[in-house]
C-alpha cells in the first residue's frame, strides 16, 4: 500500500479584496503518494500557485482557507503555530519556485548558505557527515565541489537552480513542490534540472507536485496529471490516459495545441473556445466523477455509456 503524503480535501480559498471576496480555489480535492510526480497544469489565473501557497501554509494575509482540510503526512497543519510550520518547511516540505535561484544571498558563498539551512533547523553543521551529505547532494545535481566556494553570480542560472534543488533536498523532504521551477531555464538546462529532480525523488522516495503550464514537460515526467481551470480541477488522471483520451473539452484543446517536434509543419487546427463554451465550463459542478480507475472528470464531460 502506498503512503499518502498529501491529501487535499474539498478546499476553498478566498481572497479578500477591496472589491469584495474573490474565490481563487473552490471544491478542490486531490492526493499525492510517495515516490509520485503529480503534474498540476493550469494557465495564468487558474489558482495553481494559490494552491501551492496553501499547501505550504504560506497564503498571503488576504487569502483564507474557508473550507476543507489539507493533510500533510496524515497531519492537518492549517492551524499549527508559525513555529511548527517553520519546522516542517524545509525539513519535510520543500519548495522550488521559478525564481528559486534569486533567493540565494548574493553576498554569501554557497557553502555558507548550506550551513545557514542546517543551523536554522537546529542541527550542528560542523559534523563531518553533513559535509558528506552536501557533497553527495551536489553530485546528485551534477555539480562539482568547487561550487561551494562560489558566490551566486559566479554560477549560471541552471547551476543556481540546481544548487537550490540541492538545498531543498538537504533535510530529506517528503514532499517537494516545484512551481514552474524550470520555466526560466533554457531547454538543455531544463532537462538536466528535471532529471536531477527525478533522481533525487527516487533517492528520497519523496512525492513531487510539479506545477507548470508546459504539457510537453508533464508528458515527460509526471505520473498523474491534474488540469486546473478557474480554481478547480476539470480532469485528473494517469498521464497516459490524459494524453491518449482527454475527456474534458478544455483538456482536449490544451493537448491539441501543444507544439511538438514530431508534428508536421503548420499550426494544428484547434478552434479556440468561445465565450459560451467557457461560461459553460465555469458553471460546471466542481466535483469530479471517476470514469475509469483513477481518471476523474467534471461531470458534463463524462461520455455517455
Amino acid at each position, binding site marked *: 500500500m502506498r503512503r499518502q503524503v498529501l491529501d487535499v480535501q474539498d478546499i476553498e480559498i478566498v481572497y479578500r479584496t477591496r472589491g469584495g471576496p474573490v474565490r481563487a480555489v473552490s471544491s478542490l480535492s486531490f492526493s499525492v503518494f510517495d515516490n509520485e510526480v503529480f503534474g498540476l497544469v493550469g494557465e495564468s489565473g487558474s489558482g495553481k500557485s494559490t494552491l501551492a501557497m496553501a499547501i505550504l501554509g504560506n497564503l498571503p494575509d488576504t487569502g483564507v482557507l474557508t473550507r476543507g482540510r489539507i493533510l500533510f503526512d496524515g497531519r492537518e497543519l492549517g492551524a499549527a503555530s508559525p513555529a511548527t510550520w517553520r519546522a516542517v518547511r524545509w525539513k519535510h516540505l520543500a519548495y522550488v519556485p521559478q525564481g528559486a535561484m534569486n533567493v540565494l544571498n548574493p553576498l554569501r558563498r554557497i557553502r555558507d548558505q548550506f550551513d545557514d539551512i542546517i543551523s536554522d533547523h537546529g542541527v550542528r553543521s560542523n559534523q563531518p557527515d553533513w559535509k558528506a551529505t552536501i557533497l553527495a547532494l551536489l553530485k546528485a545535481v551534477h555539480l562539482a565541489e568547487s561550487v561551494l566556494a562560489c558566490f551566486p553570480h559566479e554560477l549560471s542560472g541552471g547551476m543556481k537552480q540546481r544548487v537550490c534543488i540541492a538545498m531543498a533536498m538537504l533535510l530529506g523532504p517528503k514532499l517537494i513542490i516545484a512551481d514552474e521551477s524550470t520555466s526560466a531555464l533554457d531547454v538543455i538546462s531544463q532537462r538536466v534540472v528535471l532529471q536531477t529532480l527525478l533522481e533525487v525523488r527516487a533517492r528520497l522516495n519523496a512525492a513531487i507536485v510539479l506545477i507548470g503550464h508546459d504539457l510537453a514537460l508533464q508528458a515527460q515526467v509526471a505520473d498523474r496529471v491534474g488540469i486546473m481551470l478557474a480554481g478547480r480541477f476539470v480532469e485528473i488522471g494517469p498521464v497516459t490516459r490524459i494524453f491518449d483520451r482527454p475527456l474534458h473539452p478544455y483538456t482536449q*484543446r490544451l493537448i491539441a495545441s501543444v507544439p511538438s517536434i514530431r*508534428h508536421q509543419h503548420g499550426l494544428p487546427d484547434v478552434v479556440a473556445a468561445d465565450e459560451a463554451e467557457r461560461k459553460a465550463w465555469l458553471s460546471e459542478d466542481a466535483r469530479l466523477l471517476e470514469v475509469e480507475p483513477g481518471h476523474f472528470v467534471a461531470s458534463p464531460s463524462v461520455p455517455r455509456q
Partner: protein
Amino acid sequence: MSGMLLEVRAAGKTFSRHGEQVAAVKSMSFSLPLKQPRLVTLAGESGCGKSTLAMMVLGFLPPSSGQILFHGEDIYLTRGARLRHFRREVQAIFQNPFEVFNPFYRIDHAFDLVVRQLGLPRTDPETSRMVRDALSRVQLDPDSVLGRYPHQLSGGQLQRISIARVVLLRPEILVADEPVSMIDASLRLVVLRQLVDLKERLGISILYITHDLSTALQISDEVFIAHQGSIVERGSARAVIEHPQHEYTRLLVASIPVPDPRERWMDAIGAAEQTP
C-alpha cells in the same frame, strides 16, 4: 543594389565587461529576399546572441563588425528621411508585452502614435474605423480594449494589440523576439496564427527569434541555429529538426520535451559534473 530586403553581413557585437571584451555575437550572416515574404527563425538558448542580433537588425545597436543592410543600404549610415523610412518599415514585437506599453496611458495612445506615423487625421471616423478593424483582425473586441490601461489587460491581449499595430503600419519586416513565450498555451496558437497571417496576407517578412524549436517548426520557412554567437546550422525547420548535423543542434533537439508520455527522455544528458 543587392536585390535583398535585409542583409546581415558578418555582423558581430562585442561588449566590454570588467575591461574584458566579450563577443555576444561573433559573426552572423543571413538575408531576407525582396518581394518574397519569408518567416525565418533564429533559434538558440539564452546567451547565444539572438536578442543582440535582433537589436542590431532593429537599428538600436551598431555592430562592432560587419553590416546590416536594408534595401542595400547600411542602416547605421542612413540618416534623415531614409532613416525614418527604415524605422517605419522595420517593426518589432517583444517578449514581455507589459514592458512595451506605457502604463500611464490608455491603449488608445499606442494607436495614436501609429496614426501619427501614418499621417492620418487623429479624430477622423475613418481613422477610428481602421484601428477597430485592425483590432478585430487580431480577434480582439475593440470596445473591450480601447479606453483601458495596460494593467487591465492580459499578456495575450497586449501582445495582440502589438500585432494590431503591425497590421496598421504594414512594415516590410517584423522582428518578433520571443513573442509567445510569456503567453498561455491556449492563446499561443492564436498569436502564432496571426504571425503567419501577417506574412501570408500582408506580405510582411518576419524574423522570429525564439528558444522554442517546436513552434519554429510550426510556422517558419527556414531556421538558423545560433550558438555562442554564431549560426551553426541552417535549413528548413524540418530538415534541421529531423537531421541535425551540428553537435549542438543534436543536443538542443534531444532536449525538447515531446508531448507524449510514451516517448520519454531515455538517457540522462549533461551527467558530467559541472564546474563553475
